[in-house]
């Protein structure tokens, strides 16, 4: 551990270097000495990051807390109304629907990404020919701007010209194609599909890295003991991948739960609010309707849920 190495570092370095540093001017020498003291230099180097995160993360967070307990509109501060925004939201059918959507969306998307990502990672692991090309192709959806690639999906799900419907009709499976983005449950499937498409590369490539790091001897030993392919997968691969898997799932859960781009471009939360997530609802209430207090409350509802996710996942990782 590097921290251990830090502890053993001789304390006399700063003075040694200062003596040898070619500084003539006594004031500059003093300043130079001052900045070479470890904690002074430490604070100096970290100051820009500290100021940035303080002004543009911590302060907005406090503002969000403040907005959420007022009836503010965009541009005009409102009066303190306690927890009424939160209370009203819990009795609002659209918000409850959003809450439900978010859980269904996150759970299905993360589950699909995990299962498909594992399958893809196992395939990539064995790929020898065209390895670079295959990996490059697989990673592409993750690199392209989501908002732009979702436009492509939007066109593929178009009510009239959908390429899926054309295919279904020409295969003789249906007479009239479904209206993908106009039917609540189909719109949900569409949104989940795009999210899985976009997130799968991340899962597959990170799991691939996990697979590479598993010692081959384990598999060979299991083979000599007569373990079949399925047993090797279940008793070696899965347990060895658990720590990596926990981290990937943690990240993916957070960023799927708080997703905005896909839903905003594909459905704007519709039809009849069946695909709204916290972020899109917060945008609709807070900016489009201008009720920034209520919008902030919607956003902040994500916070305790995410904190719980992080807490349990990190506890799981530590145990492993």
């Amino acid at each position, binding site marked *: 551990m590097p921290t251990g190495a830090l502890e053993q570092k001789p304390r006399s370095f700063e003075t040694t270097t200062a003596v040898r540093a070619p500084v003539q001017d006594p004031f500059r020498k003093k300043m130079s000495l001052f900045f070479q003291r470890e904690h002074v*230099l430490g604070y100096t180097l970290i100051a820009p*990051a500290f100021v940035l995160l303080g002004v543009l993360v911590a302060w907005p967070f406090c503002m969000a807390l403040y907005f959420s307990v007022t009836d503010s509109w965009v541009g005009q501060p409102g009066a303190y109304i306690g927890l009424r925004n939160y209370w009203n939201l819990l009795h609002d059918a659209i918000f409850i629907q959003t809450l439900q959507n978010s859980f269904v969306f996150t759970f299905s998307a993360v589950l699909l990404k995990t299962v498909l990502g594992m399958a893809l990672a196992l395939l990539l692991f064995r790929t020898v020919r065209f390895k670079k090309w295959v990996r490059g192709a697989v990673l592409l959806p993750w690199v392209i701007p989501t908002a732009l690639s979702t436009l492509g999906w939007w066109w593929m799900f178009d009510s009239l010209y959908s390429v899926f419907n054309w295919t279904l009709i020409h295969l003789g499976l249906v007479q009239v194609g479904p209206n993908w983005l106009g039917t609540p449950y189909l719109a949900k499937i569409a949104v989940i599909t795009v999210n899985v498409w976009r997130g799968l590369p991340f899962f597959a490539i990170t799991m691939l890295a996990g697979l590479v790091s598993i010692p081959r001897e384990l598999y060979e030993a299991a083979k000599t003991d007569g373990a079949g392919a399925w047993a090797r997968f279940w008793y070696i691969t899965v347990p060895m991948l658990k720590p990596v898997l926990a981290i990937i799932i943690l990240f993916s859960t957070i960023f799927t*739960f708080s997703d905005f781009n896909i839903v905003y471009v594909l459905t704007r939360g519709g039809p009849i609010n069946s695909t709204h997530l916290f972020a899109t609802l917060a945008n609709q209430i807070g900016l489009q309707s201008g009720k920034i207090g209520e919008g902030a409350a919607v956003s*902040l509802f994500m916070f305790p849920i995410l904190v719980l996710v992080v807490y349990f996942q990190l506890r799981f990782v530590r145990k492993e």
Partner: protein
Amino acid sequence: MKTRTRNFLGQLLTLYIPLVPFILFSLFPFYFMVITSFKADGELYNLKANPFIIQLSPTHPDYSGGPTLEHYQLLLRDTPFLTWLFNSVLVSVLATAISIVIAILAAYSLARLRFRGAPSFGTAVFITYLVPTTLLFLPLAQVVNRLGLADSVWALIVTYPTFLVPFCTWLLLGYFRTIPQEIEECAMVDGCTRFQALIRIVLPVAIPGIACAVLFAFTISWNEFIYALTFISSTAQKTTTVGVTAELIRGDIFYWGSLMAGAVLGSIPIVLVYVVFMDYYVSGLTQGAIK
């Protein structure tokens, strides 16, 4: 010879054939975007025409002139697409540069220097790394207003570091820790100050890690959507992602061809970067675990 054939067949059946649906799933949307962007309206809005191809044979009933550049022309002539592209480049380059400098300093400080509060700041950085942008965009819009940056690309240049700095710091922190301390200590014994040691010794060694952080920061900035959408309203200040999604739909009229053309052109810069530096992306993903 026989075993080799059997081996090849086995590989084909258990590896390359199962890979096909994954690769199709991955690439088809791009293929479809590209083909749509070159398709003439007559064929694009013909329900009978095969959507997968552009009809090239003039005798075919669905033929309407073959591939066309009209959607690209409309995009470049009737919309300020090049301005959006320029804004995207400006924002991504500046936000990345600012963030990398701040992150290098912070990561070095956290990786090497002992001072009170360092561990808790490290934790704070990790936590902000996990805070999604969608949690704070409403109040951040107000902060941006108050800083007098509303409705300009500067709002984005200033706010993008809020998610880039935690991310880059985290990535670089891991990287700096893999660099042996001895090389800096040697330099300091030879008369370097610590800061000089950072600039002259540590940074050159850390170039692969920094390159990785730069690439990811640039990609994340280029792809950013919610801040660009909510902080900016004038057309001339928009970035590509928002410009294309917002300005090519007028009322009920969808310019599908040009929408796809915009999506293709807006993706090309990042695809080029990706193709050149693919190995860094893969190694970054496996080291850092990224949004």
